[in-house]
């Protein structure tokens, strides 16, 4: 019953019009227009647009503000100001790559910084232990987000809109809206301010916060681009169903992403104590919006799966350069927000245009 037929069967007659020698997998080699080539370049290197914009904005401010702007000191000051947004933005990057969004990043940062401070001062805990507790709590906050999103399948926007309020309210209730003064921290728990310590190199002044941001972004860049886990993060943001069928344990990766984001936010909480000197539940109100701004200007797609963490860093730096440069130039600070707003919309428009490569 299962004899293989001996007569070779041939293609249908209607197919004879099809030229056989044209292989399916050949590439159109026709001359591409310059615009098409630019699009392809941007498609394959998503961090290049923000990098170009960053260099341009540096040049523009160097011209209009003058030599005051282009000093190692001034430029390193920008880096100091960008450190916290850069770290929170790294957490946001991970989440956005999976096609999610995390509105609770700022709240986790404040909550953990308050925990680190209060555990030290209210309970007399050793400062190292208090910091560990803060970081563990950050991971727990991220874990809660992750479980709600991966297992209960709730939309990330809604989940983190809720947990943002919850974590922030917890911060106020627990701390009784009380600030720990910088002098007290300096006298009793210097380690909390570690990341604010200044390191002069040449004419520039860096803080440990700047170094940890750069180190963190470098490590995450490696993980995202050169490990299987990193590829899985991209694949999930790209097409979760395809990732699952290809053998990616999507739920586990999603939870790991949110836990890692929580951990990074706790690190940002620690860095923010160094930056502000004090521990206050009032700080970091806009960290979530600022991190999303950095991610978007950095050319990452909010639809997931596209973009580079380097782009996020450039995006954060662009915002830093503009706010610093505008202040030095002496204009109303509102101009900065106006320009940032324009940049955001431009970035999303460019993202849409680049994505058409696929179509």
């Amino acid at each position, binding site marked *: 019953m299962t004899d293989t037929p001996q007569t070779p069967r041939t293609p249908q007659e209607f197919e004879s019009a099809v030229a056989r020698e044209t292989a399916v997998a050949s590439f159109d080699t026709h001359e591409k227009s310059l615009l098409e080539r630019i699009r392809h370049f941007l498609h394959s290197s998503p961090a290049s647009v923000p990098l170009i914009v960053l260099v341009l904005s540096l040049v523009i401010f160097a011209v209009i503000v003058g030599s005051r702007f282009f000093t190692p000191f001034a430029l390193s000051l920008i880096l100091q100001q960008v450190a916290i947004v850069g770290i929170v933005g790294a957490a946001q990057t991970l989440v956005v790559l999976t096609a999610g969004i995390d509105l609770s990043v700022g709240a986790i940062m404040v909550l953990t910084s308050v925990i680190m401070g209060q555990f030290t001062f209210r309970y007399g805990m050793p400062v190292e232990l208090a910091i560990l507790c803060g970081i563990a709590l950050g991971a727990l906050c991220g874990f809660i987000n992750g479980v709600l999103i991966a297992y209960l399948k709730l939309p990330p926007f809604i989940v983190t809109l809720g947990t943002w309020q919850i974590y922030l309210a917890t911060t106020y209730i627990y701390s009784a809206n009380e600030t720990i003064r910088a002098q007290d921290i300096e006298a009793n728990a210097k380690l909390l301010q570690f990341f604010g310590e200044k390191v002069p190199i040449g004419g520039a002044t860096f803080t440990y916060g700047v170094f940890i941001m750069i180190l963190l972004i470098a490590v995450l860049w490696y993980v995202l681009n050169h490990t299987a886990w990193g590829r899985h993060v991209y694949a999930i943001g790209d097409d979760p169903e395809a990732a699952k*069928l*290809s053998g990616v344990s999507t739920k586990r990766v999603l939870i790991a992403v949110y836990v890692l984001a929580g951990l990074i936010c706790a690190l940002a909480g620690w860095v923010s104590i160094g930056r502000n000197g004090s521990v206050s539940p009032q700080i970091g109100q806009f960290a979530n919006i600022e991190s999303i701004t950095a991610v978007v200007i950095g050319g990452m797609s909010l639809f997931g799966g596209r973009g580079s963490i380097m782009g996020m860093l450039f995006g954060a730096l662009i915002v830093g350069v503009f706010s610093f440069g505008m202040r030095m130039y002496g204009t109303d600070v509102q101009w900065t927000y106006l320009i940032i707003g324009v940049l955001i919309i431009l970035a999303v428009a460019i993202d849409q245009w680049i994505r058409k490569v696929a179509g």
Partner: protein
Amino acid sequence: MSREPILTARGLVKRYGRVTALDHADFDLYPGEVLAVIGDNGAGKSSLIKAISGAVRPDEGEMTLEGKTIHFRSPMEARDAGIETVYQNLALSPALSIADNMFLGREIRKPGVMGSWFRMLDRKAMEKKARDKLTELGLMTIQNISQAVETLSGGQRQGVAVARAAAFGSKVVIMDEPTAALGVKESRRVLELIQDVKKRGLPIVLISHNMPHVFEVADRIHIHRLGKRLTVINPTDYTMSDAVAFMTGAKAPPPS
């Protein structure tokens, strides 16, 4: 062919609530053959295929692979057992490169400390293997193995998905409607691909609605009707309209 079937199913039952999708269905796949599975919409052929590829767990019945009983709880388990599926939606990640896609979920890590401690991917090895596989299947006009899948045409993507299945499928390759979304020219290339995979000794289960394609490449045709195997025919013995008539019940099946 007196050989033993490589993959069998006996008395598979799958119910969804009050609907019975599989009603004591049988299935046999012999080594080295292309077996087409056809059936009307709702006949239960996708449930049958899902049971074989591990996407669905049947309520009753048993399956064997090379004589050993198998119980897949997930597509991963079927894959680990050597059954690869090319899904109709291809299950490719558009923004990732061809090589990354082929190795998604089973990446190769660098040897030594870089791999075990830093978990670094061995891009070179993966790209080489991917290129070899595509060359083997005559797809090596794809020049740039690190280009994103979304820059490929539909047929090229299908080629990548088939190459992935052929690269890892050690025992069986299942293809779900591989030509449904393609034009005439690209369909032709995919049919050649099916022949190429078959030449390498891998048996293929082909699910298709396209009768000309089925009759061209299939060695045997499994006709599914009302949740069970109606009959298996040899495409050289019957015409396409016979097959459609069996499928829809307009004609009684030949006595087996």
